[in-house]
């Protein structure tokens, strides 16, 4: 049995004094609220705040990009829908006195086909307005071999047999041709596809940069926690426990940043939408509306923004978990191969 030379109570006074003080503090009327509610990973570190800010900025840019692609996609599809819902019939003026009859015959014929909702003939006034840029105001069309145009409106979601309509018109209405705007449609589709592809490429680059920045920022914020991980390891914490603590911490940090960034981007779109609505009757508003339609994010836009935010949150949490596991593996010298 080991013994302390000189006895056990070499300085009993000091010890008694200390313990008396402790008793007072530890009694039922304790002055301090002692609790273990503090996070094992410090909540308000400088690098943690910086990480939140970085994630907020990157989430904002990525969501802006996602929203922009969604708006362009929506606008391009709307152009395509509008173009594909109308076709035009042109009747050449071979028999000018009988033109009205020919127009009626063509209208009746086309309306027999499935999927056609309405046929509207351009009257002389409408035709004159169409030709105004070339012929000037109030041209006398009776003197000119101007063809008659019929606007054929297709029912929503229907796809009429344009080949059969064209054939029937050629057989039964002399001088009538059908223009289904295919050339326009194809050009528009190509343009829309290129716009979407370009936007998606930019989005992919922004997302890749965001992923890298979030991963490195998370690892940077983890660097200052190296000592904490080591202490937890030596006091017997399992790697799952330590990883869980850090994952929870970084989930909170990244949620704060990603939600802030996502909400800011939604506000930007809401602001632009408000601005275009406000300026609808003005030239600048009309130009913007003609180009982009409205800045309203559909459910796909909101869904994409939410998805980007969730991905960034998970990315940061998973990166922190992997970094902790990796550090603990490096501390477990007996599980490392030489």
């Amino acid at each position, binding site marked *: *049995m*080991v*013994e*302390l*030379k*000189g006895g*056990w109570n*070499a*300085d009993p006074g*000091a*010890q008694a004094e*200390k*313990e008396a*003080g*402790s*008793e007072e*503090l*530890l009694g039922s009327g304790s002055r*301090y609220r*002692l*609790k*273990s509610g*503090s996070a*094992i990973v*410090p909540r308000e570190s400088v690098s943690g705040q910086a990480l939140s800010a970085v994630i907020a900025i990157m989430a904002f840019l990525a969501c802006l990009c996602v929203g922009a692609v969604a708006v362009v996609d929506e606008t391009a599809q709307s152009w395509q829908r509008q173009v594909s819902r109308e076709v035009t019939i042109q009747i050449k003026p071979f028999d000018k006195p009988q033109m009205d009859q020919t127009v009626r015959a063509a209208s009746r014929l086309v309306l027999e086909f499935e999927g056609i909702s309405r046929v509207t003939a351009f009257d002389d006034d409408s035709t004159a307005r169409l030709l105004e840029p070339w012929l000037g105001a109030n041209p006398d069309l009776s003197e000119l071999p101007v063809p008659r145009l019929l606007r054929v409106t297709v029912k929503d979601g229907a796809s009429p047999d344009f080949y059969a309509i064209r054939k029937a018109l050629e057989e039964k209405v002399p001088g009538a041709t059908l223009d289904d705007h295919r050339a326009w449609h194809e050009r528009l589709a190509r343009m829309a596809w290129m716009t979407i592809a370009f936007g998606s490429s930019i989005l992919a680059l922004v997302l890749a940069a965001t992923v890298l920045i979030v991963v490195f920022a998370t690892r940077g914020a983890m660097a200052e926690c190296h*000592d*904490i991980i*080591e*202490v*937890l*390891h*030596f*006091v*017997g*914490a*399992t*790697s799952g*426990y330590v990883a869980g603590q850090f994952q929870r911490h970084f989930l909170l940090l990244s949620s704060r940043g990603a939600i802030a960034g996502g909400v800011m981007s939604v506000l930007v779109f809401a602001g632009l939408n408000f601005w275009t609505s406000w300026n609808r009757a003005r030239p600048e508003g009309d130009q913007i509306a003609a180009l982009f339609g409205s800045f309203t994010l559909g459910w796909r836009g909101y869904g994409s923004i939410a998805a980007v935010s969730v991905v960034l949150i998970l990315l940061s949490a998973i990166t922190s978990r992997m970094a902790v596991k990796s550090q603990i593996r490096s*501390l*477990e*010298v*007996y*599980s*490392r191969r030489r």
Partner: protein
Amino acid sequence: MIRFENVGLRYGLGPEILSDLSFRVEAGSFQFLTGPSGAGKTSLLRLMLLALKPTRGLISLFGKDANTIRPRQMPALRRKIGPVFQEFRLLDHLTTYENVALPLMVRGKTEADYRKDVTDLLGWVGLGDRMHVLPPVLSGGEKQRVAIARALIDQPSVLIADEPTGNVDPPLARRLLRLFIELNRAGTTVLIATHDLGLMDQVEARRLVLNEGRLQIYD
């Protein structure tokens, strides 16, 4: 409890800093590990804590060859060891109370389970009135006692302390020594690394003396 057989350690391709160490630390024993600065005391302690792997030889803890212990068994094994680090390694964002409770917190115990134990132990090491304080405002001696209390809170089978009296004045060092002896009497195996001859002279205990990487034992 701890067994070293022909253990050698070198860092990288450098010279061997610990050579042919063979000794046993029996359960319930009390010993000092001493030697001049740079003799390899801290490295030897790190080998005992399984924080370093020897370049040769065999280390066994609690009857298990360290090489055969699986990573998932390590946390349970570490919980049987109470380490006191020379540089304390307290978490600066946690209060004294929370630092001491840390080993119990990571075991999933609730505060209701450990509150009394932690406050009692802090009172015992003379920090009853400092339990709400963060480590940066504690003195070196107070940090030392917090580190010791943290090592003891879960009643480890073995206490391994690296220079536990290095930052305290002689009366406090004597009080800490008395605490270690009391622990030992309660059944805890104690190993204290120190180069404080005055401290060692106060106790009749086994001495492991490291010199130039070799160990001599004085029972």
